[in-house]
């Protein structure tokens, strides 16, 4: 492992301060909300107040007809369709504005347009819609029952897709002596980037082009989607993602609101804007994480895991979203539940159930957060049943270092790593002394507990993985375009989008490493379809591996061309030339790279006769050695205290042992882990959007929907392991989601460790005071009876 002290001051491995932070910290970022265009109109949507209803009539009040738009006005605009190619998938079409029926609270029905948002909301206030209310499908567990009203009338039941996998299960469980069965439930959450969704659209007659500024993670995918829905050639659409204030998956989607804004800009000839407000965000954007699991773990008397069976329901909401579809989440559950554990048999059934809730969207970690919660709680339940320690049962069953690369029971190809070592290090680093001392001084109303979770994060997985899902987007080669400027600077163009990942810095570090141009002279251009090569965008922990690989590949080609010219100017052979400190160095002499650029652009008479006519601009494509993904992993260890009188859980100590492979920028890796853990703590303890039986979201402000805040977080100790991935350019692995995956499992295991002496186990998140108190009270009653 690399000693942190050996990290360099620039290039790969250096904790270079983020170049983009200069403008962010000074409040000079430019977000969609900062865009002001002359004559710009603002949109306010009238959203469905009901979860499930037929629309009988929409009254446009007199005098504002020109400013009010309903579905029937959107001539030749198609709804959003995102089918999966998986057999049995039921198709849905998400209308841009609902016409005959509404299928979740918050669905846009009418759009009102005015010179400012307040005036648009005044018009929205005056709209009256007559509904015929239908019973709402609010509970995924009963959604598929016969006799329920159908959310999509042509279906036979409220289910997008069922899957069923089984491997060697019946044989595997013959010698089982410990069998534990549990039901797990995760809550519906609302991802909460600081900046909401936002779009500004404008038609340009001169260019014959629709320009859409959108707070998106995937500008190229949005362009393709807009083209499909608006019936407009892609060449006539430019999508720009300016500074984007966080995404986490919330902005990895084609929005009905984007399609409407695009249409309206063309219809009116004026720039139009829609900025999501916090109420819209909370009432129509609670769209992730809601899973229900029935899991059985089977082990023999030595603690050897034999098999796992699982029935999982994912509440997929009302529509299939573009481009990820309604089934990515459940498909992931089935394929990643076993994770890094060895087992002989496995079976898993999944149901992507349709309900009258906002359509499900992958949130940082996608299904992994729920899956890790289910699997790691089963491991602890087995450990308790077998009287083993959480650490021992994991060490016994995790894949060993010498077994790498490892193909697990669901055919996932683990590229590298030492999972047992991660468990060892986390267990050593957690402050057990604190636990022991506190335990001695603990008052009668407090219990302390220790919890572990370990998991892997498949990142940057490509064509072979996604072709199977058959969704509208399958990643292939990732490209980058590099251009040496006439004064020796470098422009790096990538199709991914950076909205907190620090790619303006880390991609510059990679180019700097290869070309020896200092980072401050490198401009990373991203988030604009007009300037950058096509890309599926920023999702799936893919950017540092895929875009980083593409920048590296293009840099390599550019370096060759620079060396060729340098060799000519230095009277040397290209093989002798090395690039160092911004110069091309021969054996006895050197020339600045800026002079080479000057020669190409401004003094071409100095160039060799056989110079490459493509010059100092390069586009290269890149794929990993195999496209099954890099497997980063982490072990989280936590100590909690539980207040038995209030049911309150406090985190006392938190350790993350993380293997990101080769770290391009360790500081950025730390930042990703810290932010992710904060979100994971939210999932574990705070965040929940309850829906009532009418399908109404019950938390409509941030006073009711509790996000984790700074004072909820303990100091988090991060320990790095660096096992290079054999399939990526520098051995780097995607870790963008990791921090958010482990906390619910580790924290729940710690709470259950604390409460085990009282006979209490909690298998539902978030772990709120009232859930803890209820569990404690039922345990007491159980003892009494």
């Amino acid at each position, binding site marked *: 492992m690399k000693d942190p002290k050996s990290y360099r001051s620039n290039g790969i491995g250096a904790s270079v301060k983020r170049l983009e932070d200069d403008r962010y910290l000074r409040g000079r970022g430019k977000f969609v909300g900062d865009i002001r265009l002359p004559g710009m109109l603002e949109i306010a949507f009238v959203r469905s107040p009901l979860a499930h209803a037929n629309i009988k009539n929409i009254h446009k009040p007199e005098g504002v007809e020109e400013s009010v738009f309903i579905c029937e006005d959107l001539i030749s605009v198609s709804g959003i369709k995102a089918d999966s190619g998986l057999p049995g998938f039921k198709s849905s079409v998400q209308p841009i504005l609902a016409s005959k029926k509404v299928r979740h609270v918050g669905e846009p029905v009418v759009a009102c347009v005015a010179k*400012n*948002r*307040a005036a648009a*909301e*005044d018009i929205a*206030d005056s709209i009256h819609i007559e509904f015929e209310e239908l019973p709402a499908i609010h509970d995924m567990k009963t959604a598929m029952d016969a006799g329920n009203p159908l959310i999509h009338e042509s279906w036979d039941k409220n289910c997008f897709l069922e899957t069923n996998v089984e491997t060697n299960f019946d044989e595997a469980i013959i010698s089982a002596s410990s069998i534990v069965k549990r039901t797990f439930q995760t809550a519906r959450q609302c991802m909460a980037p600081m900046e909401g969704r936002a779009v500004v659209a404008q038609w340009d007659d001169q260019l014959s082009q629709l320009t859409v500024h959108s707070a998106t993670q995937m500008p190229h995918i949005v362009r393709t989607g807009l083209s499909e829905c608006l019936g407009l050639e892609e060449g006539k659409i430019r999508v720009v993602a300016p500074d984007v204030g966080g995404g986490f998956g919330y902005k990895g989607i084609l929005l009905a609101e984007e399609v409407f804004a695009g249409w309206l800009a063309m219809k009116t000839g004026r720039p139009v804007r829609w900025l999501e*407000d*916090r*109420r*819209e965000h909370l009432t129509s954007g609670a769209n992730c994480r809601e899973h229900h699991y029935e899991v059985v773990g089977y082990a023999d008397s030595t603690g050897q895991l034999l098999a796992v069976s699982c029935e999982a329901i994912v509440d997929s909401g009302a529509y299939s979203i573009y481009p990820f579809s309604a089934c990515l989440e459940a498909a992931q559950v089935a394929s990643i539940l076993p994770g890094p554990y060895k087992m002989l048999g496995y079976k898993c059934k999944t149901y992507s159930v349709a309900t009258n809730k906002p359509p499900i969207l992958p949130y940082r970690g996608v299904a992994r957060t729920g899956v890790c919660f289910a699997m790691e709680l089963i491991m602890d339940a087995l450990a308790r049943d077998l009287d083993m320690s959480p650490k021992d049962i994991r060490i016994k069953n995790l894949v060993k270092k010498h077994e790498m690369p490892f193909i697990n029971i669901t055919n996932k190809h683990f590229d590298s790593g030492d999972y047992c070592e991660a468990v060892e290090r986390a267990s050593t680093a957690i402050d057990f002394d604190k636990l022991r001392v506190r335990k001695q001084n603990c008052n009668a109303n407090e219990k302390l507990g220790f919890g572990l979770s370990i998991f892997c994060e498949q990142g940057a997985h490509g064509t072979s993985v996604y072709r199977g899902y058959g969704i509208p987007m399958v990643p292939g080669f990732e490209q980058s375009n590099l251009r040496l400027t006439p004064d020796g600077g470098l422009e790096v163009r990538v199709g991914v989008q950076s909205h907190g990942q620090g790619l303006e810095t880390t991609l510059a570090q990679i180019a700097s490493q290869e070309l020896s141009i200092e980072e401050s002279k490198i401009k990373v251009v991203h988030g604009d379809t007009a300037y950058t090569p096509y890309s599926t965008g920023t999702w799936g922990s893919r950017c540092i591996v895929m875009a980083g690989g593409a920048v590296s590949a293009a840099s390599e080609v550019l370096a060759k061309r620079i060396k060729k010219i340098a060799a000519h100017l230095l009277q040397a052979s290209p093989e002798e030339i090395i690039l160092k400190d911004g110069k091309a160095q021969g054996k006895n002499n050197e020339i600045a790279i800026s002079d080479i650029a000057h020669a190409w652009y401004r003094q071409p008479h100095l160039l060799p006769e056989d110079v490459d006519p493509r010059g100092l601009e390069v586009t290269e494509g890149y794929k990993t050695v195999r496209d099954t993904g890099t497997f980063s992993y982490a072990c989280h260890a936590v100590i909690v205290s539980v207040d038995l*009188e*209030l*049911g*309150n859980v406090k985190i006392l100590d938190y350790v993350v042992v993380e293997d990101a492979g080769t770290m391009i920028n360790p500081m950025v890796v730390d930042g990703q882990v810290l932010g992710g853990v904060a979100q994971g703590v939210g999932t574990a*303890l*705070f965040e929940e959007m309850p829906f009532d039986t009418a399908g109404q979201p019950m938390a409509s*402000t941030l*006073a009711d929907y*509790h996000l*984790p*805040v700074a*004072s*909820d977080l303990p100091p988090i100790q991060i320990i790095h392991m660096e096992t290079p991935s054999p399939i990526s350019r520098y051995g780097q692995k995607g870790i963008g989601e990791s921090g958010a995956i482990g906390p619910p499992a580790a924290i729940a295991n710690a709470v259950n460790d604390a409460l085990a002496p009282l006979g209490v186990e909690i298998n539902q998140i978030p772990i709120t*005071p*009232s859930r803890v*108190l*209820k569990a404690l*009270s039922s345990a007491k009653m159980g003892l009494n009876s």
Partner: protein
Amino acid sequence: MKPVSFDYSVPENSLAVVEHLKNAQGTAKIVAGNQSLGPMLNLRLVRTNALIDVGLLAEVRKCVVNQDNVFIGAGITHAEIEDGDVQDPTNGWMREAAGNIAYRAVRSRGTIGGSLCHADPAADWLIVLTGLKAFAIVQGLSSNRKLPVENFITGPFTNDLKEDEILMGVEVPKPSATAKWGYWKFMRQVGEFAKASAVIYHDEHKQITRCAIGALGRQPLLLHNPEKIFDGTLTPANAIKESLPDRDFAEMTMHVTAIERALSIARNRSEPGK
């Protein structure tokens, strides 16, 4: 999330405010710190024709120290009480309570009078001032009146003000040197409204004992037999059971715990200022 349009005025004195209120006939709202009303206007949960800003009005921005009590103007901010910019009649109890209201940003603008008038059931001043046996000072067009805080708050988000009245401030009695006080609230997160809260106030010299619980979804509840709660002959669980027979288990547990912890603070901490 933008408010409907409204008029905005800054009257020069309280009589002008009352005049204004009378003319508006219930369609105007008084605003000071704007920490609750602002978001509610933005959400259009509240719609008003006019906002009357009293945040800078000298009469509600003052503090008067009397022999037995201190008058704190309704426009005094939580931060001013927290920082000791105005005299704390309780020698520190109010400062401590003020310092734990929401966040500093909210405390810098939010006012004691605004908080009382808004009457959020979980707000700190409702229960603290009820526990301290404080009075609300109300001015109308022709007369003033003074009423106990527990009578000023008439329910969740409702107060006793008539259409043409304004809350001028609160009169907080000075406790005796040997009085005991405990205020405890349960918040999971810094800055959020309490899930349960309790005060206990025992002033042997003045022969006052009060015990109230808050965050009930209604105005703070003064419990019967507070002396017995304080001396331990009536358990918090029994004290609550009597007054709130049909609350859910988890909620009851939190309130019982709140009283127990307030009691423990009161018993372990002695006189004001110590």
